[in-house]
C-alpha cells in the first residue's frame, strides 16, 4: 500500500467517525494548549525577572578591595592587608575597550542638616558616571556634573526621603545643606527608588568624589562600579579589570570582581526549572489525552472488527493494518496538537494585550517539544489498539466477534 493511500484511508476512516475523532482532537488540543500556555507563562516570568535585572544593570561589575575565594559572596572579612583601591586604579580601568563607564565610589555616614533639622544619612562620594551605571533617575534638578574627578564642586544630589525630612514640601533645589561641617548646594533630587545593592536610596546624599575624600579623610575607594559595553562582554571585562589592577598592585591579586551574571544565571536556572515543572504538570493532561485516545481507539477497533477481517481477507498483512491504525492515531495527535497550539497562541496573544508589561512568549523549544510529545503520546497509546487490530483472527473478525 502506498503511503499516500494509507493516509487517505486513515483520513476517510477518521471522517467516518466524526464524534469519536472530534473527542480525541479535543483531548489532545486541551493537553497541548495547557502545556504550551503554561510554559509560555513560565518563560514570561523568567523574562520578566531578567528584565528587572537588566534595569539594575546586567553589564555591571563591582570591584572591591581584598580577595575572596567565591565570586558573588560578601566582601572579604580577612585576607591580610589588601592594598586599597584608589581613584587612579579606577581611572586606569577606562583603558579597557569593553568598559563603557567606570564609577568609583566612597561610602560613609554623616549628619546632614538644614536649618534646625538634622538627619544621619549615607554619603556617597561619586562621579557623574554613577547616574548611567546605576540607572538613577532624578525627580528634579541635575546630577553631579562631569569633569575632573579630583576637583568637584560643593554640590549634592539628595534622596527623596532625605529631602522630605529636611525640607518637607518646601523646594530644596539651590538651597544649602550642611554635611558634617561643610556646606553643599542641592542641585538634584533623586526619584524615590527604594533599595538597591543594599543601600537605601532615599536617605542618601551624593557628593563629588574628591569632596568625600576630604570629608572622610580617606584616599581609598569603597567600590569601583564598572559597566561593560554589552552583557556578552562582561566576562572579558572581568578578566581585563583583574589584569589591570593586578599589574597596578605589583602582581598581587588583592581585589575581587563580582558580576551579576552569576546571580542572573541562578535566577535563570530557577525559572527554567519552574517552567519545566509547570510544563510537566501540564503534560499530565497529555497523558490523560493519550489514555483517552487509547480507549477510543480500542472501541474503534472493536467496532471495526468486521472491517479489519475484510482487509485481511482482501490480503492486507497484519503489519499493514498496524500501520493504518497507527497513522490514524498519529494524525489525530498531530492535528489535535496543532489545534492546541493555535489555541495557546490565541491565549498568549490575549494575555499580551491584557498585560502588556508581562513579557509572555512561547519558547520555540516548547512548540517542538509539544508536537513531539503529542505524536509520541498518540503513537504510544495507539500501539496497543493497533496491535490488537493487527492480530485479530480474520475468520472470527469477519463474523463480527
Amino acid at each position, binding site marked *: 500500500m502506498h503511503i499516500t493511500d494509507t493516509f487517505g484511508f486513515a483520513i476517510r476512516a477518521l471522517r467516518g467517525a466524526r464524534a469519536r475523532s472530534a473527542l480525541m482532537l479535543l483531548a489532545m488540543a486541551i493537553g497541548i494548549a495547557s502545556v504550551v500556555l503554561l510554559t509560555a507563562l513560565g518563560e514570561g516570568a523568567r523574562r520578566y525577572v531578567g528584565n528587572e535585572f537588566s534595569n539594575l544593570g546586567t553589564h555591571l561589575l563591582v570591584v572591591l578591595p581584598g580577595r575572596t575565594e567565591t565570586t558573588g559572596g560578601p566582601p572579604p572579612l580577612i585576607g591580610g592587608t589588601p592594598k586599597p583601591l584608589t581613584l587612579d586604579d579606577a581611572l586606569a580601568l577606562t583603558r579597557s575597550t569593553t568598559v563603557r563607564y567606570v564609577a568609583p565610589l566612597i561610602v560613609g555616614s554623616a549628619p546632614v542638616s538644614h536649618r534646625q533639622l538634622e538627619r544621619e544619612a549615607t554619603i556617597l562620594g561619586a562621579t557623574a558616571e554613577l547616574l548611567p551605571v546605576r540607572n538613577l533617575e532624578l525627580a528634579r534638578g541635575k546630577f553631579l556634573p562631569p569633569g575632573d574627578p579630583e576637583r568637584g564642586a560643593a554640590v549634592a544630589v539628595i534622596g527623596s526621603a532625605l529631602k522630605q525630612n529636611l525640607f518637607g514640601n518646601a523646594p530644596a533645589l539651590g538651597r544649602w545643606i550642611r554635611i558634617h561641617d561643610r556646606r553643599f548646594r542641592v542641585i538634584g533630587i533623586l526619584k524615590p527608588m527604594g533599595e538597591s545593592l543594599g543601600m537605601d536610596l532615599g536617605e542618601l546624599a551624593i557628593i563629588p568624589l574628591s569632596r568625600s575624600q576630604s570629608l572622610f579623610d580617606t584616599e581609598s575607594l569603597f567600590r569601583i562600579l564598572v559597566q561593560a559595553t554589552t552583557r556578552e562582554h562582561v566576562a572579558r571585562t572581568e578578566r581585563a579589570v583583574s589584569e589591570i589592577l593586578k599589574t597596578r598592585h605589583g602582581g598581587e591579586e588583592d581585589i575581587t570582581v563580582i558580576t551579576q551574571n552569576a546571580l542572573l544565571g541562578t535566577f535563570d536556572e530557577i525559572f527554567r526549572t519552574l517552567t519545566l515543572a509547570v510544563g510537566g504538570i501540564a503534560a499530565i493532561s497529555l497523558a490523560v489525552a493519550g489514555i483517552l485516545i487509547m480507549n477510543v481507539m480500542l472501541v474503534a477497533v472493536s467496532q471495526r472488527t468486521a472491517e479489519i477481517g475484510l*482487509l485481511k*481477507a482482501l490480503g492486507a498483512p497484519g503489519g*499493514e493494518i498496524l500501520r493504518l491504525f497507527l497513522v490514524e492515531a498519529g494524525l489525530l495527535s498531530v492535528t489535535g496538537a496543532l489545534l492546541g497550539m493555535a489555541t495557546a497562541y490565541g491565549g498568549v496573544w490575549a494575555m499580551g494585550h491584557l498585560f502588556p508589561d508581562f513579557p509572555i512568549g512561547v519558547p520555540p523549544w516548547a512548540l517542538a517539544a509539544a508536537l513531539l510529545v503529542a505524536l509520541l503520546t498518540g503513537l504510544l497509546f495507539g500501539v496497543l489498539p493497533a496491535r490488537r487490530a493487527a492480530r485479530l483472527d480474520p*475468520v472470527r473478525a*469477519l463474523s463480527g466477534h
Partner: protein
Amino acid sequence: MIRLEGISREFQVGDERVHALRGIDLDMIPGDYLSIMGPSGSGKSTLLNILGLLDRPDSGRYRLEGIDTTTLTEPQRAAARRERIGFVFQSFHLLARLSAAQNIELPMTLAGIDPAQRRQRVARTLRALGLADRAEHRPDQLSGGQRQRVAIARATIMRPLILLADEPTGNLDQSSGEEVVETLETLNRDGITLVVVTHDPRIGERAARRIRMVDGAILGSG
C-alpha cells in the same frame, strides 16, 4: 490446481472438541464450478475459509498451484489472498464510508497498484456489471443485489484464480439472487474457478460439480 488431502479442523468449544472438518479430500481444476450444500454446522464455511487461506487446517495438506500452503508464512498467505483468491460474503462486507468505486478499488489500493491504473480498472468493471451510474453511491444507497455485485467486483478486480462465495444470495430476494448468480456464472465462463456455498438447492444444482457435506465430511460429489 487445488488439492486437499485429509484436511481436518477441530474447534474447542468449552470442554468439547467440535470436529468441523474430518479428513476432506478434494481436487479442483481451473474453471471448475463447484457448489457446496449441506445442513447448518456441517463445515461448509470452515472448508471455504481454509480454501481461502483465512484459516489453517489442524492436519492434512493443501496445495494451491503446486505450493504447499502449510509452509507459507502469514505475510505470504496474505499475499496469496491478495493475488489469487476472491471472497464474496453473505453480508457483503462493504465499507459504509466508501463509495462503490472506492470499495471496488480497495484490494488494488492494498496491493499498491498506482491510482491511474486503479481508476481505469474500476471504471471498466463497473461498466461490465452495469453499475457505472452507481460508482459514487455509498453502499446504503444501493439495493442488496447491487451491493453484492459491487462486492463481486471487488473480489475479482485483482483477477484471482478462484472465487469463493459463502451464501452469496443468503440476504437477497429471489430476483436479485438470480442476478448475482448470473454475474458469478459469467465470471466462471470467463475462466475463474468458482466455489459457491448455498442452502438454496436451485442455485446449488446449477453448478457443474455439486458437493454435499454432512458433519464435516463430503458425502458425495457429482
